[in-house]
């Protein structure tokens, strides 16, 4: 085995290790912009991932319909072939209908907030290790004007922010991620806190509203929205309180927030490329 450490193969592998380590240091230094090597991977992988995500969505929808068709077939064997024929026609129709509804909802956001510059994007991949953060990759990058830290929303509410941006893709961390902090307030009581990820709550699809004053009257069902500032626009819906408790030590209260956006199942999102008062990195 000693020969290996004197060989050219070892020197090449050691060189590669040093290069990867250098990439890691550079990534830590430059923050939100992906290294060139990673962007190269993105240029190759993202189009394939986009197709795979589309096929996966189609197959899932198809099988869901197939289960229903089986139930219908049991009731009426004679109509099975006719139902199958109609189903294949309906697949296209329902896809268009769903897309139309999503776009209509996004148009609603635009009408409500005329200062928003929006970029529609599709979720093309989800991190294999994402059980607690639900982070994902979208098919839009800096070529589409997306920047690091841009807020990401769905028609229902805030989803997260862009963590890292490449040429044709961006990585999004959601509000369920432990590294995410969003200034928020309770619409009814006007109490201010911070919404951030928490491992226990994230596994149930919820996040934590911390630092509520001890005397706060925040209650289950209250709507939580963003306070605004440089990173997120004001009054974006985050979700509603499903539980209120006292922090260990009793200094402040916390709330469990159920996000308004269905973060685990999102297929389409909107990136807010610019809004009034935005701080760019």
């Amino acid at each position, binding site marked *: 085995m000693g020969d290996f450490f004197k060989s050219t193969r070892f020197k090449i592998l050691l060189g590669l290790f040093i290069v*990867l380590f250098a990439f890691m240091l550079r990534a830590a230094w430059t923050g939100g912009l992906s290294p060139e090597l990673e962007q190269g991977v993105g240029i190759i*992988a993202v189009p394939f*991932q986009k197709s795979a995500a589309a096929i996966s*969505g189609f197959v899932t929808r198809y099988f869901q319909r197939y289960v229903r068709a089986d139930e219908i077939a049991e009731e009426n064997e004679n109509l099975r072939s006719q139902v199958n024929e109609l189903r294949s026609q309906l697949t296209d129709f329902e896809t268009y209908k769903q897309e139309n509804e999503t776009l209509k909802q996004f148009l609603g956001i635009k009408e409500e907030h005329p200062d928003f510059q929006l970029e529609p994007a599709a979720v093309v*991949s989800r991190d*294999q*290790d994402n*059980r607690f953060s639900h*982070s994902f990759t979208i098919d839009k990058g800096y070529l589409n004007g997306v920047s690091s830290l841009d807020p990401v929303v769905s028609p229902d509410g805030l989803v997260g922010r862009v963590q890292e941006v490449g040429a044709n893709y961006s990585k999004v961390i959601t509000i369920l991620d432990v590294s995410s902090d969003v200034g928020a307030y309770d619409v009814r009581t006007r109490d201010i806190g911070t919404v951030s990820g928490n491992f226990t709550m994230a596994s149930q699809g919820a996040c934590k509203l911390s630092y509520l004053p001890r005397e706060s009257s925040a209650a289950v069902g209250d709507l939580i929205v963003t306070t605004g500032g440089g990173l997120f626009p004001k009054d974006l819906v985050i979700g509603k309180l499903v539980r209120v408790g006292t922090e260990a030590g009793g200094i402040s209260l916390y709330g469990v927030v159920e996000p308004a956006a269905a973060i685990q199942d999102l297929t389409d999102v909107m990136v807010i490329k610019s809004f009034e008062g935005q701080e760019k990195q």
Partner: protein
Amino acid sequence: MNNRPKIRAAKYTIYCLFMLALYILQTTPGFLSIGGLKPNFVIPVAMAIAVCEGDFPGGIFGAVAGILCDFSATSLFGFQAAILLACCTAAGLLTVYLLRPTIVNFILLLAAALLIHGMLIYLLNFYMWGYEDVILVLTRRILPSIIYTLLLSPLPFLAVHRLHERFEEWLEE
């Protein structure tokens, strides 16, 4: 005419395409997802190449697998690539000098590599930052994900082993 370089090039191109195809499946939303857990395919492929082909190809494909994992993760780019390069090189060396390239040895080496990879991610990305309930990452995400990956790992190993044997036959002809 000597076709060996061409056959070798074809073999490594097929390994690359195989790994890319499995990576796309691995990151496809909802694919093989059980309660939010998904298996990792690219690490078993890199480990299978290390076991079948030895230290140098193993190290290179370990780095490629790590780059792909880094691409879909939000951690620092290069982190997983560096870990997997080291693990797959070590596995390749062990197979060349000490172990036979059998499926049992492959699973043991893969389990060790996945544990090292998972524990380093846990320690450096989560534990050292002092997050609340951080142990849940280990018990509900990293360890179950390792088990899920190990359960499916014989499939990529058998595929790589088959390809390796077929190409070795062509090289001997």
